């Protein structure tokens, strides 16, 4: 589905990503874990086309998308739920969701998907007329995820969905991620909350200062001594 090959991304002369390769197969949940500044968000932005790689490629179903415009990448089936959610604060919850379906023209299907998102996140339906900016952190996360779903993605990129949320909400959000995956959407998950991420991921990569330093199944990494020390707090 998604394949990243020898990706190098630079900000001026600073190399943020120093040649990473990984892949997400059909129907998988794959997670990239790593500390702040490891290059996780840079990777996500490069896949989505907001940043251009210095070298290397990003392939979607065998097609190189590393030079494709960001809005086209969404059309091709890659949706991102960005770090800090970045919802449109002045627009209503429903308009935020409909913006997620911006690339689509199938009105009836959009309405159907809107109902599905409301089924997945009943709280969004209660607040559908409210400006997005008035929602709580957890609700904003749900809105950002719902918004990403509205583009009918083949793969969804989730950047730090647990950020700033209470443990209870984190649990709820992760069970919904699982549900989205069960419905057939592949998922690339970036997290600092390694424990949660590894527990739902089929496979995982550990990224440190722009390099992948370890990879394996979620379970393997969860039981690894090094990971335990560095990311799971002993």
């Amino acid at each position, binding site marked *: 589905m998604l394949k990243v090959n020898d990706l190098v991304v630079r900000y001026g002369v600073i190399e943020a990503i120093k040649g990473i390769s990984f892949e997400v197969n059909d129907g998988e949940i794959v997670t990239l874990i790593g500390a702040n500044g490891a290059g996780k968000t840079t990777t996500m*932005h490069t896949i*989505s*086309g*907001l940043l251009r790689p210095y070298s290397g490629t990003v392939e979607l179903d065998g097609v190189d998308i590393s030079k494709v*415009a*960001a*809005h*086209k990448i*969404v*059309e091709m089936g890659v*949706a*991102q739920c*960005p770090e*800090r959610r*970045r*919802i*449109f*604060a*002045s*627009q209503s919850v429903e*308009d935020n969701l*409909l*913006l*997620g379906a*911006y*690339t689509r023209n199938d009105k009836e299907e959009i309405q159907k998907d809107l109902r599905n998102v409301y089924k997945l996140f009943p709280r969004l339906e209660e607040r559908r007329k409210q400006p997005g900016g008035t929602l709580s952190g957890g609700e904003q996360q749900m809105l950002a995820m719902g*918004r*990403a779903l509205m*583009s009918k993605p083949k793969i969804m990129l989730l950047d730090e969905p647990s950020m700033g949320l209470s443990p209870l909400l984190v649990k709820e959000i992760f069970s919904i991620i699982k549900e989205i995956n069960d419905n057939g959407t592949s998922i690339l998950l970036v997290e600092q909350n390694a424990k949660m991420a590894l527990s739902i991921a089929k496979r995982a990569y550990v990224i440190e200062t722009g390099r992948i330093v370890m990879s394996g199944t979620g379970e393997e990494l969860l039981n690894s001594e090094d990971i335990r020390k560095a990311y799971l707090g002993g």
Partner: protein
Amino acid sequence: MTFLTYLISGLALGSVYAIIALGYTMVYGIAKMLNFAHGDIIMAGGYVAFYAFSKFGLPGYLCIILSIIFSTILGVIIERLAYKPLRAASSLSVLITAIGVSYFLQNAAQLMFGSDTKIFPAMLTDGSLKLFNGQLTISYLTIITIVTCIIIMVGLTTFINKTKIGKAMRACAEDKGAAQLMGINLNTTISITFAIGSGLAAIAAVLLCSTYPSLSPTLGSMPGIKAFTAAVFGGIGSIPGALLGGILLGIIENLTKAYISTQLSDAIVFTVLIVVLLIKPTGLLGKKENVKV
């Protein structure tokens, strides 16, 4: 009654400022740049209407439509050629480029049309409405100007809030990156914004030139700066702010001219701006922007 006359003509002048200010504020809101060539689009629109009317004898409404089409295309071309290549550049580079485009347009107009001042014909109407036994005279042009401004405001607000493209424009204004993640084409959206702003500038051109019937290559610079001031005064990036800022500026300017001093009117207008910005740096209706790290 004279006060009322001054007030109404101030309202009309303010309406023109507001229509021009919309161009500044929308472009700033979405492209985060100050398009200092906006005033010169007014000038270009004025010349197109002038030649269409005087040389080709077309009816007034057709002159306006031609002027709108020409300015819209000119605005989009300027954005594509001059500003688009600088999308990732610092705002200072873009600002200097905009000033360069402004001089380019003024000099191109001088070369093509000569630097002499032309008399703009009354292409809309030259009648007036007499009220209270002739004590109050309002020209039809004044009424047309104010009504046009109202129609534009209502139309634009509806467009921005109700249509898919309008909502996409708001999304781009709020967060360009997130908007692109929705699949919104940023370049198209910016082009549409320039097209709308430039088309409105042409309408303002005809209204302005009809009120003050002289046409010269530097015609756009003063109303351009005033409208920019109005946009900042009302809160740049805000559409209701452009309306409020424009109207207030027009009224203050006219009343100052009438009761204080014609020479000092601009100085007083800008003093008011400075005072407002000292008290409320974001302008009357401007929102504080959250700077993200």
